[in-house]
């Protein structure tokens, strides 16, 4: 599959229209809680140990109509706000041959297809854009639930999701193969329903 390039406003517009035309049902909008919305990455270092880093808080929202089993997700990952615990590595990751944070300060994930098994959300199927390259990506739900937030007293949904990608698919080849191509993403997200 050839990588495609798309501008963020076009992707966002598509997600909004997809959500709007979703059905006769009324999807509710849930906005990400910045204190509980992060993505962690894991990549194998010299076939020995797992190097981890964090991006976030993530910005974005989900439109959900759980009874109809549909919805969409739009999220932005700030590529400058990468944190591995090592300032020198964080700076290195922002450079042009890795995250290219100056040219591409954000990565995007947009899913217009939510896969349900009964009432249980299993998967978000969409497209991930990193360094301006877009590729299909599925986020597998490790857990997902909705309810009343115990502190805020508002409707709230959240969960953990996992995905895997090959960084070379997005043109990030520095350090291969000593630092592995396969990158695991662990996404924590909680979102509060708009009032």
């Amino acid at each position, binding site marked *: 599959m050839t990588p495609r390039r798309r501008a963020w406003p076009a992707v966002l517009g598509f997600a909004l229209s997809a959500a709007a035309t979703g059905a006769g049902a009324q999807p509710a909008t849930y906005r990400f809680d910045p204190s509980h919305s992060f993505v962690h990455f894991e990549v194998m270092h010299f076939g*020995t140990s797992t*190097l981890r880093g*964090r991006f976030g808080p993530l910005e974005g929202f989900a439109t959900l109509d759980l009874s109809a089993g549909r919805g969409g997700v739009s999220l932005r990952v700030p590529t400058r706000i990468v944190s591995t*615990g090592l300032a020198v*590595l964080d700076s290195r990751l922002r450079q042009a041959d890795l995250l290219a944070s100056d040219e591409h300060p954000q990565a995007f994930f947009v899913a217009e297809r939510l896969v349900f098994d009964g009432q249980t959300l299993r998967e978000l199927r969409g497209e991930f854009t990193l360094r301006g390259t877009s590729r299909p990506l599925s986020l597998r739900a490790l857990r997902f639930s909705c309810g009343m937030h115990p502190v805020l007293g508002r409707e709230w949904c959240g969960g953990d999701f996992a995905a895997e990608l090959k960084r070379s698919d997005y043109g990030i080849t520095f350090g291969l193969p000593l630092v592995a191509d396969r990158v695991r993403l662990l996404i*924590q997200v909680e979102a509060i329903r708009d009032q």
Partner: protein
Amino acid sequence: MKNSLIAAALIATTGFAQAQSATYSVDPTHTFVTFEALHFGTSTIRGRFDRKEGTVQFDRAGKSGKAEISIDLGSVSTGVGPLDGHLKSKDFFDAATNTSAKFVSEKFGFNGDKVSEVAGTLTMMGKTVPVTLKASNFNCYQSPMLKREVCGGDFETTITRSQWGIVYGLPGIPDNIRLLIQIEAIRQ
């Protein structure tokens, strides 16, 4: 080039089997403890400790080892400033008083020539509790940058935080906390 590096690493690893106990210094750039805590049954909060030090003595042929690793509790990093502050407060670590957590082991388990588990004790908040770390990866390689042998891996365990008296937020934030440990140590 890459293949020759891998070959060099393999040869170094094989040769190491004849070696006696050697001392390894923890590489702080590839050693982190990450914790995972489920938040109100909904999503997983992750945090990391950024300052640590330690040494490992390791005899692959004799299948024995010792480790002593100290983690600075005040270096906790979740990406959420107010949460880091709360974790360092008296509700959790009281990091001003309890500056560090210390893991000490004198019992390495092996599966073949790879470390499979490390049994020891974790001391923090003035309490010492047995903890066993299970290896999910273990390997030694010759570092092309350092020109030294590096051994390391991934380890994990689940601790019960109330055993150290950390009970704030139970049960919304559960007692069971998963620890994921990345470690690499450089032969001295």
